[in-house]
Structure formats: C-alpha cells, structure tokens
C-alpha cells in the first residue's frame, strides 16, 4: 500500500511532479546522448588512427622512437617477423621503412614523412585504401607508385599519374632522390596525417635509402582487448635492442584526448545530475513541508517513522525512475536516429582527427553508469528531505 500511496502522491501536484519528471527525462536523455556521442568520437579517432597509421603494436630498434635516424633499422627483421607471426594473438605482421623526405613537383615541394610499405600486407593492416578518393592502392604491378593526400596533391598541384621527385638522406649520409608516380590520392579524417605523410612501396624506398632492414614492424592483433598481453609476450621474446610499443605509446596525444573527452563527458553528466538533484531535493522538501500534518497523522495512527521515510524515498525513487527510464528511452532514440543519419559537425575538426560526420553508438557501460547515477541521485538526494520526516512529532504536526 505504501508503494501505491507513493505513486498516487506523486500525482497530487501534477504540474510540480511533471516539471521534475520532464527535466529528468531531458537531463538523462542529454547525458546519455552526449556521453555516447563523445565516446563515439573518441573511439572513432582512436580506431582511425590505429587502423590507418600505427596498427596496435609496433617493433622498432631501441632508440628509433627518440631519434628516427635512417640507420636505426631493426636487426635481423625477417627472423623477428617469423618469431612474432608464430605467436598466439597475432593476425598479421608487416614491415615498413619510415624516413623524412622532401616531395617535389614542378610547382612546389613539401617536407614530410615517407613510409615504405609492403602493398599486400599493408592492405590487410591499414584501411588507408578505403580513404582513397582517386586512383588506386599500391600494388606490385605499378611503376614506382606513391600515395599522397588530397591536401598534398593540391599543394603540389598533382593528379593521379603525376610525377614527383622524392629526396631523402640515404643510409650512407648522401642525399638521394627518386622519381615516383602518383597512384592514388587519399583523404583521411586526420588533417595532420594527410599533411605529413606519403606512402610508397617498401622495395622502392629500400632501394632509394639503401638500407637492408625496415624501421618498424607493424602488428595487427586478433583481439584488440588483449594488446597489452600480446605486447608483453613479444617483448619477452626479444632482447633489449628491440622496443615493442602499443598504440597508447605510439599515439600518446590520442590516448590523452580519449581520457580528456571521457572526463568532459563525465563532468557534463555530473552537472546535469547535480541540477536534477537540486530539483528533486526542492520537490521533496515542498512535499514534506506541505504534508507535515498528514505525515504526523500517519505517525499518530501507528506508522513507524522509518516506514514514512521509506514511503517518501519511494516517491522520489518513482519520480526519478520515470524520469530516468524516459530519458534512457529518449536518449537511445536520439542515438539510434543519429547512428543512422549521422551528426554533421564542422570539417574544421579534422586537425583533431575527427570525422566531419559522427555516427554515435550506444555503449552499454555508459548506459549502466547513467542507471547507477540515477539510483545514487535518488538515494543520496532524497535522503535529506525524507530525513526531515523522521523528525516529525505527531503531536506537533497535528497541532499545526
């Protein structure tokens, strides 16, 4: 009966209860939508960076990450690759050459990083081919092919099949150059990557740089949730002259941004919850104030004070439950619509690696967090007004 009474009491003042419930529905919906959108942005950024640039794990010669010297190649790379390929949790391993270069066309030139990749393996590791807007991916049938970004193509006034000259410092210290032909033009979500990277074939770049071994081994794992275990297992198999790093080390700014964006989302949610908390507290204070005499009567006829307390908690709990349930349904609705049609955001966020259209997805962990926050909100916030009911003395309440 106390549950029934609590339910009926909510609707004694429909306007007041509805104001809170609507505020809660909107608040929870916005919190859920915002948190999931931000998480989706963050995950999309990480996913793009991992799948286009670094993959999950890389092996370098110790010191390469600090100096990026042309001669800091991986000793005995073929044996290392064979050893790593045989380990559990490895999907594919490929090798890359990575060095600084100047790419020049008859119109202009730019300084950038040139990556020499194995076309076949790279197509399995990297999704760069999916971001080609013109031309085709690298293959072994082309003649000195190179992939450039659309930005680079615009700056150098290049088209597919245009010729460029790549100049690098070879392993013997000499400055050397080679001619390449644009095979494809790509546009990734990351402007910095587009502006600073061109891709050539491993063998072409090896010939130009005159190095025998690659600078990095790029590893795709079968289970992205087990990257750390795989990374440690690889490191344990290799000597200290090899450095094994996961994507968090290779993409520190993205990892930090992920933490930052999670924190911003959490802060936003907490602000909403605090606002709802004050609204609920105000509502419950008014309820206790208005019904002091009635609560006193209930105490007089034998209802225990904790029973009165629980009844008030049920009232606030029911209101929050309706608001939270409605908000979650609405929030999931928003996410569902946005995941189909996308949310168009400024293209200017490409410098952060954010795509111009975001497709948010629902993250169960965030949904659970919202539910937990709703429970915490009810219990903590409602306790204060409900505890005022504990202090009601029936003789005084009935006299007033």
């Amino acid at each position, binding site marked *: *009966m106390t549950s*029934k*009474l609590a339910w*009926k*009491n909510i*609707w*004694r003042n429909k306007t007041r209860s509805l104001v809170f419930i609507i505020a809660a529905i909107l608040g929870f919906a916005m919190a859920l939508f915002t948190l999931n959108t931000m998480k989706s942005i963050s995950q999309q950024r990480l996913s793009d960076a991992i799948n286009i640039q670094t993959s999950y794990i890389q092996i370098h010669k110790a010191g390469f990450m600090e100096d990026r010297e042309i001669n800091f190649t991986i000793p005995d790379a073929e044996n290392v690759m064979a050893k790593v390929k045989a380990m559990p949790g490895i999907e594919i391993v490929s090798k890359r050459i990575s060095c600084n270069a100047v790419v020049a066309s008859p119109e202009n030139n730019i300084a950038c990083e040139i990556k020499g990749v194995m076309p076949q393996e790279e197509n399995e590791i990297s999704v760069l081919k999916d971001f080609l807007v013109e031309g085709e991916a690298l293959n072994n049938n082309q003649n000195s092919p190179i992939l450039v970004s659309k930005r680079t193509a615009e700056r150098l006034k290049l088209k597919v099949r245009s010729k460029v000259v790549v100049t690098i410092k070879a392993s013997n210290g000499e400055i050397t150059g080679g001619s390449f032909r644009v095979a494809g033009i790509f546009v990734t979500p990351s402007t910095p990557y587009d502006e600073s990277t061109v891709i050539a074939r491993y063998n072409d770049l090896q010939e130009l740089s005159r190095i025998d071994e690659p600078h990095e081994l790029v590893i795709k794992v079968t289970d992205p949730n087990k990257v750390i275990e795989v990374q440690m297992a690889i490191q344990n198999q290799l000597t200290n002259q090899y450095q094994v790093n996961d994507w968090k080390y290779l993409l520190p700014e993205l990892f930090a941004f992920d933490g930052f964006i999670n924190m911003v989302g959490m802060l936003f949610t907490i602000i909403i919850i605090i606002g709802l908390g004050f609204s609920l507290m105000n509502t419950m204070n008014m309820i206790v104030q208005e019904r002091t*005499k*009635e609560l006193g*009567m209930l*105490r*007089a*006829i*034998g*209802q*225990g*004070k904790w*029973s009165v307390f629980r009844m008030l908690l049920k009232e606030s709990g029911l209101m929050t439950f309706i608001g939270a349930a409605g908000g979650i349904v609405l929030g999931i609705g928003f996410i569902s619509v946005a995941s189909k049609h996308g949310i168009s955001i400024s293209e200017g966020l490409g410098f952060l690696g954010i795509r111009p259209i975001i497709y948010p997805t629902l993250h169960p962990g965030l949904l659970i967090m919202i539910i937990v926050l709703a429970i915490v909100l009810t219990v903590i916030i409602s306790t204060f007004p409900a505890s005022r009911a504990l202090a009601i003395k*029936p*003789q005084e309440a*009935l*006299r007033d």
Partner: protein
Amino acid sequence: MKVIALNNVSKVYNPKGIAVTAVNDVSLAFDEGEFTAIVGASGSGKTTLLNMIGGIDMPTSGEVFVQNQKINELSEAKLTVFRRNNIGFVFQQYNLLPVLTAMENVEFVLEMQGNPKAERKQRAKELLTAIGLGNKLNERPGKLSGGQQQRVAVARALAHKPKFIIADEPTANLDSKSAADLLEMMQELNRKDGITFIFSTHDQRVVEKAKRVIVFEDGKVKEDVSYTK
C-alpha cells in the same frame, strides 16, 4: 475495571523559552466501555490530555497507564506499535489520506498491522457498509461530505479492533444532522462492542450523549460527573 489511569500528570510546553502548562497535575481513571466527553474552552488542555492518553504526547511529569502498561516509559518505536495495535484515533479535521479511496484509507491501518490483503479488504468493506458508506467504498475523501469523511475516519479508527477510540472534537466540523448521525453510530459501537470512547468536545449535543463528562479548565479537572444513560 480501570483500563486507563493518569497519575499526577502534568505537561509543560516551552515554546520560545516561555513555559506554558497545558495539563497541571491531573489524576484520572477510565473504566472499560466508558463513553466520556472532555469539555472545556479552547486552550484548556483537552487535546494535550487526549494525546497523552493515546501515547502521541508524553507528560512532563506523572504516569500514564493503559491496560496496566506504563506507556510514558515506552521507547518511540514501542509507542508507535502500541498506538497501532491498541488505539483508534479520530481527528477534528478527519485527516484522511486524500489520494486513497474510503476503502483504502481503512485498509491502510490494517496493512500497517500486516493483515493479508483479502482479510483487510473484507474488514474495510464490512466496516464502511456498517456505518452506511457501502455505496461510497471507492470514493476519495474529496468526493465525500464532511459527515461521510468523519465516518470513514471512525471506520479507520475501528479497523484494527482497538480497545479505545480517542476522538478530538469529532463533530466540530459537522452540521447538526451529520453530528447526530456520527454520535449515534459511536454510541452504538460503545453499546454493542464495548469500545471505550474518550473524546473532547465543545458541542453541547455531544456532551448530552456522554455517560461521563469531565470539565477541563486551565489544565485542571474542574468537574467530573458520571451519568447513567
């Protein structure tokens, strides 16, 4: 047989630090099956006295015994249980729960005692029918007249079969017909079921029906007269 006894009971309030004596060294006893009116001017201490008998308020000094149990020494929790199981209250303002129907208001007390649903529904229906509200079972208090609301309040007070009904000015807000009907009903319950009624009143019509009249003045018993009716 004396079922309620007050020995040298006083109640002093201290609102804003000024001591006000509401009940001053009162000793009274009530027999089982009494139909007693406590009369007196506003502020004479009638309600305070009823509250102390009913275990709603505690005396500043003195002792209150109900069925040989010294209730002014009970803990708050035990006193709540005592009220729930032994006393029925009827208030001047009816104090029904406005969101519940007449049936539910009566049932509520039975649920507090832990009675099964079917049993409490049957009891509530019986009581309301017995007091002439069989056709108003599912009406909320707002749809009932003052007299009907007070009848529901009496039914609520009777629901758990208490030994005592304490009523604070039960007819104060009723028209004369409703007041007469209510009194007749209370008298019948007193006669038939032997329920002890103690009520405060200003109403001369109520006083005339009482078997015993205690006149209160300035927190003291001025007169205590019993009648054979």
